[in-house]
């Protein structure tokens, strides 16, 4: 039992650091770079992915045994597309402004590598509970990273965080942070920082550095 | 007439004035001589004498049946003390004959053939060149008779005598041209006889006006041309010299004979002359002992096998804190760990430099200043090659022409980042040879 619990905890937590979809697998770059001009955009995008990924992973895991191998990808896509359309309609109906800000990137979740990647690599091979945890962990990791990315860009580019003023007049907003180069720069620094931390941790543990 | 030159090259401080005014002195015989049995490119010789045996000056003490090889003669009369591996100037231990010199007037020279090239048979001269153990004295030590035996399909029309001596510091060839002018011309005519060519060109850099004048005077008697070349390193490199003087380009991977020419050092010409006229095998050569680490820079006529320390002593000994011992010139010479190594056939000079010349310099990243690209005489991209070498991408280096590098060192000389470009290129070449050998297997 303890083993099972540990396994569950691992599947849930790995998405935040060791298998972070953005910082480690560098997946889903399209929404990552395009929509993270503010923390709220990052959060919305992240939550949309949480819903789509968890729901589709659970469904795929449930039906994984009845789907013939040859048509598994089309089937996955149909399932994923269904949930994506649901999210899209939901946002249009209740959060029109956010839907406008995210533009085509919500429908584009269909082709986001993270979703199909988890479906193919995990949900189609594991039971429902583990698939659920995996999907939840990975998508929450994605969300947290997007919020961080969006937050940094928002703070530096607009002096606000989730719309609240956090920096005073003395700081001139840097427009570049809201532009695509700002996204690349921030992501680059985040990747660098993660690798640096990992290396330091490894050194502390006495492990060998390098690849 | 404009000066002959090539594209690229560098102008290091020449420092020739240290020894260029010093006439060639015959160095006194050392007590003991160390004669390595491999002093040329090609197969090493096997000893033909044994320990305890008494030998005469000029007697053969080592030879090999291989074609690319040259016999080795005893430089003195004396007694064989030992035959054992001894540190060789090329950096590893080589089987050497150690001779205790004895006073003995008797010599075991070859039969003189005469001094009129017109009356001599080319074949006989070639045979004599081989028997006398003559190798290229410019430093490359390629067996001369091999060089003078081009395959039948290669038509040779020009002989170029290399008197450029583009390496800084060295003045051995300069002194030879001044003091042995007639021998050089005679030797050149003999070589021309072997090769059956009519056109002989003697190339001299314009920083030796006295030699140019002297040689021109003698050469004009025989219709030999003197080409005055621009003073620039590496003007004396075969390929560069051929390009400069007769504007032909030796193809990549090819030899001068591929463009109908043979290049020979002026020192080699003297050796040929002596071997033919006097029957004297190659047992001594002119060595410049110079550099700021030497009290009295001089030019010596020294027996092969003379320990370097002996010559340095004759030049007044060392001065200052010694930093580097170099056999040859500063650009392509080989650093020696000590002065115990002997003079060999390829020793054109012994250069001692003081420690102060070697302040520690950092080896930095290439800043792509392209100085090296500008000076590379074979038009490579040395900076790129050095980066490729560091990255150990051997095959890529081959695409960038690493094997065409003549290792003249111009690139490393100018490099502001003080990168060991030549060393990296040498390593790359060695690795490529290894890979080729593996593939053959």
């Amino acid at each position, binding site marked *: 039992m303890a083993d099972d619990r540990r396994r569950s905890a691992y599947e849930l937590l790995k998405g935040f650091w060791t298998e972070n979809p953005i910082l480690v697998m560098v997946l889903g770059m399209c929404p990552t770079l395009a929509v993270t001009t503010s923390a709220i955009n990052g959060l919305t995008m992240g939550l949309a992915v949480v819903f789509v990924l968890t729901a589709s992973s659970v469904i795929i895991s449930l039906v994984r045994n009845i789907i013939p191998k040859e048509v598994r990808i089309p089937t996955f896509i149909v399932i994923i597309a269904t949930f994506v359309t649901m999210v899209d309609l939901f946002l249009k109906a209740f959060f029109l402004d956010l839907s406008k800000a995210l533009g085509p990137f919500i429908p584009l979740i269909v082709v986001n590598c993270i979703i199909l990647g988890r479906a193919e690599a995990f949900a189609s091979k594991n039971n429902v509970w583990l698939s659920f945890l995996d999907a939840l962990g990975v998508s929450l990791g994605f969300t947290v990273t997007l919020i961080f990315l969006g937050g940094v860009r928002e703070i530096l580019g607009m002096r606000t965080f989730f719309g609240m003023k956090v920096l005073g007049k003395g700081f001139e907003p840097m427009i570049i942070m809201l532009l695509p180069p700002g996204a690349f720069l921030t992501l680059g620094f985040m990747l660098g920082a993660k690798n640096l931390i990992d290396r330091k941790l490894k050194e502390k543990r006495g492990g060998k550095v390098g690849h | 007439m404009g000066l002959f030159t090539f594209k690229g090259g560098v102008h290091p401080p020449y420092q020739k004035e240290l020894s260029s005014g010093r006439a060639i002195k015959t160095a006194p015989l050392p007590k003991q001589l160390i004669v390595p049995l491999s002093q040329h490119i090609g197969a090493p010789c096997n000893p033909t004498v044994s320990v305890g045996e008494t030998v005469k000056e000029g007697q053969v003490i080592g030879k090999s049946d291989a074609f690319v090889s040259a016999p080795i003669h005893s430089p003195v009369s004396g007694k064989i003390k030992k035959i054992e591996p001894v540190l060789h100037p090329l950096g590893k231990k080589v089987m050497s004959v150690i001779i205790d010199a004895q006073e003995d007037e008797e010599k075991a020279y070859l039969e003189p053939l005469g001094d009129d090239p017109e009356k001599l048979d080319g074949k006989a001269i070639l045979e004599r060149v081989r028997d006398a153990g003559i190798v290229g004295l410019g430093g490359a030590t390629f067996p001369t008779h091999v060089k003078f035996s081009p395959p039948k399909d290669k038509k040779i029309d020009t002989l170029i005598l290399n008197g450029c001596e583009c390496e800084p510091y060295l003045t051995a060839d300069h002194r030879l041209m001044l003091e042995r002018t007639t021998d050089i011309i005679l030797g050149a005519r003999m070589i021309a006889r072997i090769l059956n060519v009519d056109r002989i060109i003697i190339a001299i850099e314009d920083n030796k006006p006295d030699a140019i004048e002297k040689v021109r005077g003698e050469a004009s008697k025989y219709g030999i041309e003197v080409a005055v070349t621009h003073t620039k390193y590496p003007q004396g490199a075969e390929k560069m010299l051929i390009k400069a003087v007769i504007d032909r380009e030796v193809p990549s991977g090819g030899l001068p004979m591929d463009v109908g020419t043979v290049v020979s050092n002026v020192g080699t010409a003297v050796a040929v002359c002596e071997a033919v006229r006097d029957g004297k095998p190659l047992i001594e050569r002119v060595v410049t002992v110079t550099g700021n680490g030497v009290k009295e820079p001089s030019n010596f006529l020294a027996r092969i096998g003379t320990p370097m320390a002996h010559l340095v002593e004759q030049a007044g000994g060392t001065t200052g804190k010694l930093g580097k011992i170099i056999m040859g010139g500063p650009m392509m010479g*080989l*650093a020696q760990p000590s002065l115990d190594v002997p003079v060999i056939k390829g020793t054109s000079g012994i250069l001692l430099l003081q420690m102060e010349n070697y302040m520690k310099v950092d080896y930095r990243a290439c*800043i792509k200043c*392209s100085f090296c690209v500008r000076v590379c005489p074979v*038009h490579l991209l040395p900076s790129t090659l050095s980066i490729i070498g560091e990255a150990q991408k051997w095959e890529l280096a*081959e695409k960038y022409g690493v094997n065409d590098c003549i290792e003249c060192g111009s690139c490393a*000389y100018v490099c502001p980042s*003080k990168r060991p470009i*030549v060393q990296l290129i040498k390593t790359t070449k060695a690795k490529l040879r290894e890979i080729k050998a593996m593939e053959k297997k």
Partner: protein
Amino acid sequence: MEKAEIIVSTSPHIKSRETVPRIMLSVIITLLPAVAFSVYLFGIYVLFMYLVSIATCLVSEYIVVKLRKRPFTLNDFSAVVTGILLVMVLPPKFPMYGVVIGAFIAIVVGKQIFGGIGYNIFNPALIGRAFLAAAYPVHITSWIAPRIGSISAVTGATPLAAMKFSGVETSLKALFLGTVGGSVGETSALLLLIGSIYLFIKRYIKWQIPVSIFVTVFVLGEIFHLINPVKYPGPIFHLLSGGLMIGALYMATDMVTSPLTGKGCVIFGAGIGFLVVIIRLFGGLPEGVMYSILFMNAFVPLINRVTRPRIFGTEAAHAK
């Protein structure tokens, strides 16, 4: 004689006196006239900009080198060069925190991320300036009048902006001497030219680059000027105005980010010249030297590959 003291290393055993610090120091010294003039022209604030920029560059370089445990490279003065050049292409009165950010970006993103000096693809100072242009588009186009001035000093607009947006042409003499508005160190063509003469003589800069930039700009400028003399300024105006001089002489010629061969440098310079004229005459911006150089920087590896010299004794460079 102690044996252990003898150095045994591969040839060549003598090396030229040129070193990287020496080259960088020469660049700094030749920039000094223009630097001094800029302080005189725009006031003491500019001097502080230089100091802050250089200090930030040095500190940033030190931090990254420490973090990456790389060999110490501060003593090659290249960070100082970057610091000075960055300020020279910024407007006077640029806010100080902007200078700090720009210098930091120049060193960290422009240079150290690629592995430090020698490995960077883009000119670090221009990376810093490009970042600032995108981050603070308003500040980067806010000019002040020089202390000794010409007509354009009234509005504080640069000669290029005055030409592009108002059709006012500044006198060539003012442009040549540098008594006009503009970025800190780019105004005086004369002083930049004087400074660079030494670099030309020492061959620290590849002469093909500035020459081919000047020729391309001149020829293209003349062509357009002939087509419509009212709308398009003359070629000399092009050469003397904006950042062309400092760009051509000090930015494009950055050793690390320019091609290796002479032929490559000609292509590189022609590309820059072409882009400068196109951006100036048809682009949305009054000035395009910076972007032209950065753009061509990206092509340097490609240029190097296609302009590989013909190896001695081979038919063509790619024969093998």
